[in-house]
């Protein structure tokens, strides 16, 4: 029986954790199998949840979130017969499958769309906890925006410096208001359930927003430009499907592997013009082919554009 552990922010954050949940649910629906899951309430619980699941013989154990990294390093060694999958950070152990995504690539594409949809030439970014991973989102996004409109302004805000920043919709809403006041008319939220507040405010104020991780277009139909999807659901689904024989190692999933992308569905089809799609698809092809390199913030902790 496989197991899934959600990070703080909770299973129904409409975003990262929910993507993991959807993957597990898909596996359940298709195979009729069952799985164990737990939502963390605190940092201190990480170890207990991991160990308890491993003790109980669950296999594989999937955990969603970089914050499990240091705990997993320790626990993995104690349970050599259990396979672990961790998402968003690298852990090197013989029984760990570590998956990272090229979020900068996906963010680049939605950045392009934001720049094309913006009338004011000012777009916004609301990040969750201020960590390099989120800077990576922001940097990819800014590069995409500037690629379309070098004169555009990208307003960037982080919600906080602790995990609480993933679950603070009020603050997300206030940051969105501030950005709108500064002229932003498209805002990209990469902030877990904090982003729900951003999208809500954007919709209330009649501007466009961009969702993250899961496809969030349906949250406010006709008002969410697109979503930068990160196929965490796929990673969970595949891990569950592979079961205990899950291949371990370190994997980076980008546009080429369809690990990231942008969402197009009935909720945003009126917002996305044909030329937008054409431009974005072209960029995507160039990135996949290697012609276009989007800078990854985490390689040097710096971003070439502001």
């Amino acid at each position, binding site marked *: 029986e496989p197991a899934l552990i959600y990070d703080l922010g*909770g*299973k*129904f954050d409409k975003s990262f954790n929910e993507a993991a949940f959807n993957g597990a649910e898909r596996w359940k629906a298709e195979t009729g199998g069952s799985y164990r899951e737990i*939502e963390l309430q605190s940092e201190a619980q990480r170890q207990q949840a991991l160990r308890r699941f491993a003790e109980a013989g669950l296999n594989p154990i999937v955990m969603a979130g970089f914050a499990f990294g240091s705990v997993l390093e320790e626990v993995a060694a104690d349970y050599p017969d259990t396979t672990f999958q961790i998402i968003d950070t690298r852990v090197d152990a013989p029984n760990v499958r570590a998956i990272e995504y090229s979020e900068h690539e996906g963010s680049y594409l939605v950045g392009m769309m934001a720049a094309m949809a913006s009338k004011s030439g000012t777009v916004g970014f609301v990040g969750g906890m*201020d960590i390099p991973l989120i800077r990576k989102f922001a940097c990819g996004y800014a590069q995409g925006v500037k690629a379309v409109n070098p004169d555009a302004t990208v307003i960037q*805000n*982080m919600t*906080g*410096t602790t995990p609480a920043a993933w*679950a*603070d*919709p*009020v*603050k997300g*809403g*206030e*940051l969105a*208001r*501030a950005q709108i*006041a*500064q002229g932003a008319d498209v805002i990209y939220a990469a902030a877990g*359930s904090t982003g*729900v*507040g951003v999208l*809500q405010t954007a919709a209330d104020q009649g501007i466009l927003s961009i969702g993250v991780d899961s496809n969030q277009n349906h*949250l406010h139909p006709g008002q969410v430009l697109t979503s930068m999807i990160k196929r965490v659901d796929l990673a969970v689904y595949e891990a569950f499907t592979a079961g205990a024989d899950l291949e371990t190692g370190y994997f980076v999933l980008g546009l080429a592997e369809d690990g990231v992308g942008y969402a197009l569905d009935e909720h945003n089809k009126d917002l996305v013009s044909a030329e937008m799609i054409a431009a974005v698809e072209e960029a995507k092809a160039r990135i996949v082919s290697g012609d276009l390199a989007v800078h990854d913030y985490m390689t040097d902790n710096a971003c070439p554009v502001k």
Partner: protein
Amino acid sequence: MDFATVLQILDSTVRLATPLLLACLAGLFSERAGIFDIGLEGKMLASAFFSAAVAAVTGSVWLGLGAGIAASLVMAAIHGAASISFRGNQLISGVAINFLAAGLTVVIAQTWFSQGGRTPSLIGAARFEPITLPLAETLQPVPILGPIYHELISGHTLPVYLAFALVPVSWWVLYHTRFGLRLRAVGESPEALDTAGVSVVATRYAAVAICGVLCGIAGAYLATALQAGFVKDMTAGRGFIALAALIFAKWRPWQALGATLLFGFLQAIALRYQNIDLGGVVVPVQVMDALPYVLTVVILAGFVGRAIPPRAGGEPYVKER
């Protein structure tokens, strides 16, 4: 900082101060009657959940508000029973109520909605909509005053206006009505009220009930106006900041307005700017977060005027030992 930014921050201040103000006035009625209440947080939380839950199910924010107030009143009734009828320790009762609300809201939310302790997002009539005051659009072009009226004064939700209106109302009730006189008396000297032939128990329950209603509005505002739904622990310590504001205000309504606006302003600034650069010295965001609490300690230490709580506060009224 330009004018628009200032307006933005003040606008944000008003929104963030509203739940603090409502909770602070709630605490004011209760504590003026001699019932200390560190359970403001719990009452708000209970109300936030039930208002969001009922609004989500019925699609009516008004039913939601009613449910929120009812939930808060139930908590108030527990506190009242513990501290008035059973002469228990008011602080412990408050602590218990905070725990109770934190636990029950998530447990019930999970049972009802299976969304990890949240309610579904509220849409349309299930939320309080911003109210555009008359002439707001027309006056907008007027320099200075126009934007102030349009951005800052107009365009808030109903509970915001209600909260601000409650300040003069509370003042008037406390100082100009029979009920207010008795309420203040029972917090200072319950035996004086008792020997004057007025029921101490009834007066205190009335005060606790008012506290419940106001906390209920505060919680409903959080869940159905400021946000669109309930999430676990969404009050995030606002009940304690309201308590801090109450001490800051020395248990007076107008000062409560000032204190909550100040704390709301601090929150607005902390929200807007992660680290504030004051000409070389960078103030980390954590300082802004902690400022209300630090200020309260400074006030309590009596360095900025002494805050003397109602004399009979915190003590059960015991006639016969």
